[in-house]
């Protein structure tokens, strides 16, 4: 969850900085500096901790002699299965993202384009919003029972399905905004030009909402990558995802601060890469319709 907060605030601060710097005086600058410090401070602490020996962290030694041993231990250590956790996370996040994009895009298209009675579309969209507001923790109990009955407990499928469920509301809302921006005439032109409805969707509609797919995909992927409580509850050691693995560095008798920090830094890499690549799509997606 920590990494998603960091990652999400990147584009936001990037867009607000110039306006504040121009308009505000030293109060604004100070507040901004505090905000940046609040966001980057913990990250910087983790980053430096990942290069320290455990003893240096305890003694607060500064300056310290940097070491790569934590990374070596986390990634290549005989006792570490962190690479396996990364693979698990990649599989779960990729599969759930792919699935949520398919389901969410089709649902959003249907809700936006087809002439549903108002109670159907409003009801569905309202429910997704309510669902989005329910704390995930309340659902974990029922899910645990349901998946154990179905024989899906401790499988990646269970985790993928729950992540799809959790990400669906955001995907539907985001994709619906993109479909709403598309004039229906473009599809109608395709129909008159000789497309079957599905062909028009694939050849004309879908290529035009690719920015939306990228934005929703990145947000869904990062959420799934960071998701902790469900992954903790529905998987055992073998199928643990990255956040769960990181938490396990805090054991009963000892907290492996340095390795935990190294694992945390490794875990932010996909999010940082994705945000760097897709930032402009995400900013556009979240503000779509706000400005013409």
């Amino acid at each position, binding site marked *: 969850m920590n990494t998603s907060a960091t990652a999400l605030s990147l584009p936001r601060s990037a867009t607000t900085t110039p306006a504040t710097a121009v308009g505000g005086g030293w109060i604004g600058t100070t507040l901004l500096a505090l905000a940046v410090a609040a966001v980057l401070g913990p990250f910087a602490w983790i980053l430096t901790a990942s290069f320290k020996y455990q003893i240096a962290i305890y003694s607060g030694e500064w300056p310290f002699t940097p070491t790569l041993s934590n990374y070596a231990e986390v990634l290549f250590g005989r006792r570490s299965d962190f690479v396996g956790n990364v693979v698990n996370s990649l599989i779960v996040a990729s599969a759930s993202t792919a699935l949520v994009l398919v389901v969410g895009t089709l649902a959003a298209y249907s809700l936006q384009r087809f002439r549903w009675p108002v109670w159907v579309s409003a009801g569905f969209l309202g429910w997704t919003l309510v669902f989005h507001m329910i704390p995930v923790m309340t659902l974990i109990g029922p899910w645990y029972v349901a998946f154990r009955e179905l024989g899906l407990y401790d499988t990646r499928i269970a985790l993928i399905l729950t992540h799809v469920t959790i990400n669906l509301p955001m995907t539907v809302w985001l994709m619906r905004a993109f479909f709403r921006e598309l*004039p229906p*005439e*473009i599809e*109608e*032109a*395709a*129909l*008159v*030009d*000789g*497309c*079957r409805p599905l*062909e028009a969707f694939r050849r*004309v509609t879908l*290529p*035009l909402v690719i920015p939306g797919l990228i934005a929703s995909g990145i947000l869904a992927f990062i959420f799934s990558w960071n998701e902790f409580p469900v992954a903790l509850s529905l998987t055992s050691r073998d199928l643990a995802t990255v956040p769960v693995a990181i938490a396990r560095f805090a054991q009963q008798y000892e907290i492996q601060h340095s390795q935990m920090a190294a694992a945390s830094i490794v875990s932010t890499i996909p999010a940082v890469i994705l945000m760097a690549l897709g930032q402009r799509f995400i900013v556009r997606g979240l503000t779509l319709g706000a400005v013409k």
Partner: protein
Amino acid sequence: MAAVNIRNVGKQFDSVVVMRNIDLDVADGEFIVLVGASGCGKSTLLRMIAGLEPITSGEIAIGGRRVNELEPRERDVAMVFQTYALYPHLDVRENMSFSLRLRKRAPAEIDRLVEATATTLDLQPLLARLPRALSGGQRQRVAMGRAIVRHPQLFLFDEPLSNLDAKLRVAMRTEIRALHQRLHATSIYVTHDQVEAMTMADRMVVMNAGRIEQIGRPLDVYDHPATLYVAQFIGSPAINVWTGVVEASSEGASLRTDHGLRLALPASDVTAGTRLAAAFRPEHVVLDGVGPLEARVSVVEPLGPETYVYLDVGGTRVCARVDRTQTLAPGDPVRCDVAASAIHVFDASNGARLSTTS
């Protein structure tokens, strides 16, 4: 090319009837313009012909083939939209060849057809551009090209010139007309602009509130409007309308208007006491200085070749077209007359035409 036959077509949205009993026959190669105020159903009718809107009742046939149940792609029609609806992710060449590629035509043939159409429409230098890099007028031409390249049985135009500026609109109007004269493709063209309708149509269809008010050649409709609505809709500036009651006298029937004026009516069999609407066009108001009607000039609009003068006649406003040599200023008193033979007489209650004028 093909004829279009529309038989008794109706349209209902849920329980609201928006269109009923539409009958229209479009001859092979004809250029038909559907014209009416917004919300009159003209675009809906066009979309029903295209297959984008289902038909509630009746039958539509294109080229003698009933198309009610056919998908838009099976009807062999091409449509130009008001917003152009170009595919934003495809360049001009791909936009134009889209339908041909869907029909799996040979690449060499596609190239030849696209090149030929691009030459016709002066689109050659733009073929590699994306729609967003084109001006409004260029987009409009690409939309036309996308329709023409297919050689469809029927062209449908949904207010294609509405988004252009006035000057370009007039130029494109002429160009579309010239294109039609060369291609002789059956075309149905929707517009709310009566000038477009007058200038482009072989025959125009005036629609109002989901019904057809009149079908006819532009000048016939102008000269013999079938209803008061048509009379008021066609013609710019709008026709002058006076309502009142018929009075009989020794010199023939005349109208005692609601403003207390008296207007001689054309010889017809209207009975005294009937409530009528008498309509006369600005060009039939004669400012000769000796007419029976006293008036005062309120506004003068010189257009160049002619001048429109708005008169205050006994509390009503009347528009008159006068020669540019006639110098009038607001406030000038004038006398005017309306030729009885040029007056259209309509039933004041339902707007139906009562007189036949020459």
